[in-house]
């Protein structure tokens, strides 16, 4: 180790424990914020894009749909939970003939 390197070691030891810990906490906090932003973007941006597409009358796609879009109008009725704006086809109650 030459004199320049020895000087570096000596000066590095002047970074006392308190300052070292303060800097460490600052870094962890900053990295945590970046990680949170990344997670929010990953979770919410695809859904936001789908909402915008739906609002402009386009077809929504999901990550699972690897085969392309299903046209809105040809879609069979939901037999489960009814999405907003779409209702199930009501069965023919037979009263139309009487009315």
């Amino acid at each position, binding site marked *: 180790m*030459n*004199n*320049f*390197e*020895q*000087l*570096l070691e*000596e*000066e*590095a*030891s*002047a*970074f006392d424990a308190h*300052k*070292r810990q*303060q*800097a*460490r906490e*600052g*870094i*962890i906090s*900053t*990295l945590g914020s*970046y990680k949170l932003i990344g997670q929010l973007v990953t979770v919410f941006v695809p859904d936001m894009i789908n909402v915008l597409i739906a609002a402009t009358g386009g077809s929504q796609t999901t990550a699972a749909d690897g085969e392309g879009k299903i046209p809105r109008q040809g879609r069979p009725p939901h037999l489960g939970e009814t999405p907003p704006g779409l209702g199930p086809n009501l069965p023919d109650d037979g009263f139309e003939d009487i009315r």
Partner: protein
Amino acid sequence: MNDLEVIHCYLEFQASECFNVLYDRYAGKIYAKCISILKDEALAQDATQEVFTKIFLNLSRFKEKARFSTWVYSITYNYCIDFLRRKKKQKDLFSDELENAPELADEEVSDKVLLEIEITQLKKVLENVPTSDRMVLLMKYQDGMSIKEIADILEKTESAVKMKIKRAKAKARKVRDEIFPEQLV
């Protein structure tokens, strides 16, 4: 674990232990370089934090072409250079060799002259040479960087870096002779 093993471990597992290993290895050295260049403890501490944040945000971009320490120190120097440029509003921190004609004899100072300076004297000498000279001397003798690596950091040609190092050595010897004249005996 060597640096590369720790890096791979951190990138794969995001383990806080790996973060702590790298931090403990380099935080003090980054701080030492920052305080040497910026000459202010508070600024050096902030700089250390900023540099480390950059390191970890860009860790996946480390290509292993150079040593990890070289990559870390290049980020450190670039941060300090950018800071000083913004502070002094000086576009080229390293343009002084063009503007200030050297008053020194054009004699090559051997590495031995610098490497034999005692540590406390070396610290004083480095404090009294211009920032740009101090930086190239640290890059060459403290970090073991090649001329090409220094040229890449400073965005200069290799011949310009060689000239810069030559003049920095001459200035360091001149400062040493002025501050510690007893060495001339």
